[in-house]
């Protein structure tokens, strides 16, 4: 089975001086899997993400991509943050190109991917706009499109729809599922919102309070598009809520 694992995390542990943030976390991610990570507020989700992106190095433990220790110079890791991170001085079109140009992809390949992504997002009319001319949600869609267009080995999203209302969130969640299915990307999606996790994930990793360990892995085997009022959906949402509820 290990052959199909895209990412292997082994005994990941992080201390900041005396502060123990992450404790011996091990799990695998299948190629093309959509994995959601939830946990109580302040449990160390962001540290966890920063370890996966190699922004921080772990105190102990290792992260393997395709069986090799993860290396930002070799592997392609994309991150989408909660705060919109489009380059303000670049148009939508140039923002989408940015990462691919840095990676020196062939010109024709870049064109092909850009056309495909703009089409998938339905953003033709925004191509020549600058980020400040867009709504926050459209700016975020550009960033998500840019991340998928990179065809990364691992795409990490840190609460990208944090402050959006339900209607918008459902729309964007359907869009991210559409992109994921189309592109076959391996995704780790971090969220505080349990309904969102159950709506998106094939598998949910529930973290404990700090120092974060894995409390439980929950497989979500519901057909898509999912119905948030389906009793099965509510059952899973309830179960996950009980595991982390502090409020």
């Amino acid at each position, binding site marked *: 089975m290990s052959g199909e694992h895209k990412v292997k995390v082994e005994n990941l542990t992080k201390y900041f001086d005396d502060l123990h943030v992450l404790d011996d976390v091990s799990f695998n991610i299948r190629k093309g899997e959509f994995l959601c990570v939830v946990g*109580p*507020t302040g449990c160390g989700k962001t540290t966890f993400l920063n370890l996966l992106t190699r922004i921080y190095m772990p105190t102990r433990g290792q992260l393997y991509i395709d069986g090799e220790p993860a290396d930002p110079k070799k592997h392609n890791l994309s991150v989408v943050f909660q705060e919109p991170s489009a380059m303000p001085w670049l148009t939508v079109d140039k923002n989408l190109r940015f990462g691919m140009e840095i990676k020196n992809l062939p010109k024709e390949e870049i064109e092909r991917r850009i056309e495909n992504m703009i089409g998938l997002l339905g953003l033709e009319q925004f191509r020549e706009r600058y980020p400040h001319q867009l*709504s*926050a*949600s*459209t700016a975020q869609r550009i960033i998500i499109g840019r991340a998928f267009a990179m065809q990364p080995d691992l795409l990490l999203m840190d*609460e990208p729809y*944090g*402050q*959006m*209302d*339900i*209607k*918008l969130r*459902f*729309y964007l969640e359907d869009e991210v599922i559409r992109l994921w299915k189309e592109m076959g990307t391996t995704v780790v999606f971090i*969220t*505080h*919102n*349990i309904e969102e996790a159950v709506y998106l994930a094939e598998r949910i990793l529930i973290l404990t309070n700090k120092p974060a360990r894995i409390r439980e892995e929950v497989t979500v085997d519901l057909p898509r598009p999912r119905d*948030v*009022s389906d009793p099965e959906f*509510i059952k899973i*949402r*309830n179960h996950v*809520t009980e595991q*982390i509820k*502090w*409020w």
Partner: protein
Amino acid sequence: MDKKKQVILSLRNISHSFIVKNEVKAAVSDVSLDVYDNEFLVVLGPGHSGKTVLMNVIAGIEKLVEGKIYLRGEEIHGSNRSIGMVFQSLNLMPWRTVMQNVEFGLELAGLDKKQRRLIAQKHIDLVRLSGFESAYPHELSGGMKQRVGIARAYANNPEILIMDEPFGALDAQTRYAMEEEVLRIWKEEKRTVIFVTNNIEEAVYLADRIVLLSNCPARVKHIYDLSSLGRPRNMMDPEFLRIRTEISQNTDLAL
């Protein structure tokens, strides 16, 4: 209508617009609305729908241009001590402690130090920040800062409290915690609350009635009476989800 439902605030034909780059941009269009005494009214609208402009007009922060506002039947103009506000962004003064922030309105009202302390302490206790009186805003978490904002608004003892998306910047779980807090405080210190949000789940959780606004310019699209839903509410209850879906389907998508 039962006796308890007395109208405290009436808006009649409120419209508001701005001039943006030599064009007139309407933000609020012909809003008429009655707010009842001691009710928890939620004003729900998509992002940038003109909700904040409407609230600023009610609070007198924005000049009333078109329409009329009545407080207990009396027409009012400009700001009024009976209407308090909790802001979207925190608006705490970073150089003042929690105590001094909560005392601010009382200071402006000319109360002496002893009275100020007494009233401020009561409201710091009310929002459960006892022990943090001498902390500065940067030492507090997002939820705690918002508690200070709520204490400050209550300390001024307004009849009507406007809360303009107070939890917009909080994570989903802290938001749930604060929603429970705001209901607890509302029960302890009965007041008319006008709570503004773009979050349908939050609206259904909190409201006696929901006023649904359209996309910009804000018009009243529909008013939902949720008194049949009972309290405390469960966000995973089928009836709760049904109402949430119904409102969501009636809401404009603001991409």
